[in-house]
């Protein structure tokens, strides 16, 4: 039975907000005092906001916990509290073991110092002892791949090299508990894969990790357990895939169909969005679709005041927030035609074998073109899943593993074959395959 290494009880953090400047100038304070020496100013009520409120949970040794939630949910604040960067307003947490926090990559790096000097400095700031850094120095430099430049000033490094070095230092931190805040949001795909791999290694070594991210794929891959924060409180706490599924659906208010009453419909006096929904080509509304089948998305809107040329457009994103494509209504019937008032339903047809597997999030907007103005925009209107049943006739072919890619079109491939390899020309006119073997 693992004991808990982190115990959080009712922790809360309150910030003052409002017209107060983040920092003050003494001269302003004095000037204000001089201006109103006799007038008793009514005290402006200081507004407070609770970034985190009454959060409690336990983490056992070796657990990898994902901390997810929308921007502003309190994830970074919670991490800062556990890292002791800021003190709680109420509640407490008890932590057993050395804590290492990675809240950004390259903490402490100084451009004037060499790579070697920065490794020591950054390592010391992150909490490593000098001997420890010296012992791991070669490993760190090898992981970053900057051996040749290790004694050049950091300002001469490319941003990619700086980041690799920064991550290399951080990756060799060996605390019992690791707190990581969206560090993987930076860097190219190669680098992100490396970071993910290193973190998996760290978790296999028995360390406890709390990982904050927006990247649902990374969270599912690394974390067994997930805590969903919403507006500073714990919304859900449980197995990762359950929570993430719930996050995608509830956190984004999404399902396959979304409707609005006229009074809270997005839009203005000219046009109002009434409904967005996704269905199969035949008309069945569903939350998940086979990757091979065409999909239709309906946008229903009401034009209250006629006379404008309105163009509906849909924006498609994957669960990492990558914009896959935008489709603009080019229906020839209404193109460049002023729309009279009334109820419209615009439908876009997405061919099968085009979208990639995973969650697709759809945003709807209606725009006028001359002058260019967005009449209404509803991000994250609906979401649906694209699933590959792996029967062998999708773009996967016979490959069963993780297949990245923003889209997954099924494209035509052709092969030509020649039994004797010609000496020079690779593209000699050989006979195409079907002539040899027939259809």
């Amino acid at each position, binding site marked *: 039975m693992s*004991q808990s*290494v982190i115990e959080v009880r009712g*922790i809360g953090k309150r*910030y003052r907000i409002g017209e107060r400047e*983040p*920092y*003050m*100038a*003494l*001269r302003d*304070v004095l000037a204000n005092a001089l201006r109103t020496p006799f007038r008793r100013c009514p005290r402006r009520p200081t507004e407070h906001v609770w970034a985190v409120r009454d959060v409690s949970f336990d983490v056992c*040794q*070796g657990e990898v916990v994902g901390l997810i939630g929308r921007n502003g949910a309190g994830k970074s604040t919670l991490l*800062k*509290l*556990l*890292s*002791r*960067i*800021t*003190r*709680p*307003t*109420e*509640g*407490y*947490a*008890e*932590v*057993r*073991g050395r*804590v290492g*926090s990675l*809240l*950004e990559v390259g*903490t*402490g790096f*100084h451009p*004037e*110092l060499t790579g070697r*000097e920065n490794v*020591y*400095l950054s390592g*010391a*700031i*992150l*909490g490593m*002892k*000098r001997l420890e850094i010296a012992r791991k120095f070669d*490993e760190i430099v*090898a*992981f970053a791949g900057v051996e040749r430049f290790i004694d050049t000033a950091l300002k001469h490094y490319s941003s990619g090299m700086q980041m690799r070095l920064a991550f290399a230092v951080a990756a060799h931190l*060996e605390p*019992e508990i690791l707190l990581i805040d969206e560090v993987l949001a930076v860097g190219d795909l190669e680098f992100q894969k490396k970071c993910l791999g*290193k973190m998996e290694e*760290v978790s*296999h*070594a*028995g*360390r406890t990790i709390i990982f904050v991210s927006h990247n649902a794929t990374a969270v599912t891959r690394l974390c067994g357990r997930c805590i969903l924060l919403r507006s500073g409180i714990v919304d859900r706490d449980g197995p990762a895939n359950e929570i993430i599924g719930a996050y995608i659906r509830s956190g984004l208010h999404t399902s396959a169909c979304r409707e609005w009453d006229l009074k809270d419909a997005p839009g203005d006096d000219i046009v109002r969005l009434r409904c967005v929904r996704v269905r199969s080509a035949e008309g069945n509304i569903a939350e998940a679709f086979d990757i091979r089948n065409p999909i239709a998305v309906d946008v229903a809107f009401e034009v209250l005041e006629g006379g404008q040329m309105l163009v509906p457009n849909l924006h498609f994103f994957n669960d990492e927030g990558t914009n896959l494509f935008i489709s603009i209504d080019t229906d020839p019937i209404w193109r460049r035609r002023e729309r009279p008032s009334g109820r419209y339903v615009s439908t876009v047809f997405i061919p099968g074998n085009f979208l990639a597997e995973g969650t697709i999030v759809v945003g709807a907007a209606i725009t006028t073109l001359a002058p260019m103005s967005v009449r209404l925009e509803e991000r994250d209107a609906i979401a649906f899943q694209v699933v590959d049943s792996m029967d062998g006739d999708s773009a996967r072919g016979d490959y069963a593993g993780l297949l990245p890619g923003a889209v997954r079109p099924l494209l035509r491939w052709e092969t030509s074959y020649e039994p004797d390899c010609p000496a020079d020309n690779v593209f000699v006119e050989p006979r195409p395959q079907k002539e040899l073997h027939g259809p």
Partner: protein
Amino acid sequence: MTAAPAAPLSSEQPILRIEPPNRWWAPALDELWTHRELAYFFVWRDVKIRYKQTLIGAGWAVLQPFLAMLVFTLLGRSAGLPSDSSPYPLFYYSALLPWMYFATSLQNATNTMVENQRVITKVYFPRLVLPLSAVLSGLVDFSISLLMFVAMMVYYRVPPSPALLWLPFFLLLAVCTALGFGLWLGALNAIYRDVRYVVPFLIEFWMLVSVVIPGSHVPAKWRWAYELNPMAGVIEGFRWSLMRNGSLPGRSILVSTVLVLIVLVTGWAYFQKMETTIADVA
């Protein structure tokens, strides 16, 4: 290359409790000791950066007090300023030695919290490490200037006296003065960002009353005001131990020590109190 396995946790692992700041102040000396290596690294970083890409590098540590001393010597000779029967250059250099240390350390300590904002908001370490390293990094320049002074003493054939044994004490007093005021100003600057612009003026004025006018020539009725300046004790102490003129200015040193201790303790308390809000304000 695999990550080393985590040490098996025993119940002897120290439990760290994270809770709201309490009302009473207790100096966190043990935490400071655990982070002593970090203080060393900050000192090392500051010194390295100060002299990277400069032409004469550490030569500035000698040049600055030397030039100031030249100015004073010329001024002194022409204006007939007192010098307690020592050669002018030595007289002024012996005051400038601790003074330059104090002035640069004070300005560095004031700015350090804001300059290191990024690190403060991303990693935890006892924030006191920052003003402490600012004050300690000045010692590097100080030792170089001290060597210069030794060279000057050889040149003027002034023999060292047993009073020299007191020098470490006066140096410690200088460090505590810089730290005490540095903690106050550093904390204030983190909250009111224009404090750092007031400091140079403060230092200029302070220098006038500390370096230019030697204690022996202050009229008796203003003596008490003169002694309220903690740096007065430090400078008199330095002059006495380095050049052996006159007797140990005991009273002024005692007053300075008491004042400095008060400033240091209150500064430390104020700084630690502000520490909890600085990360929110930064």
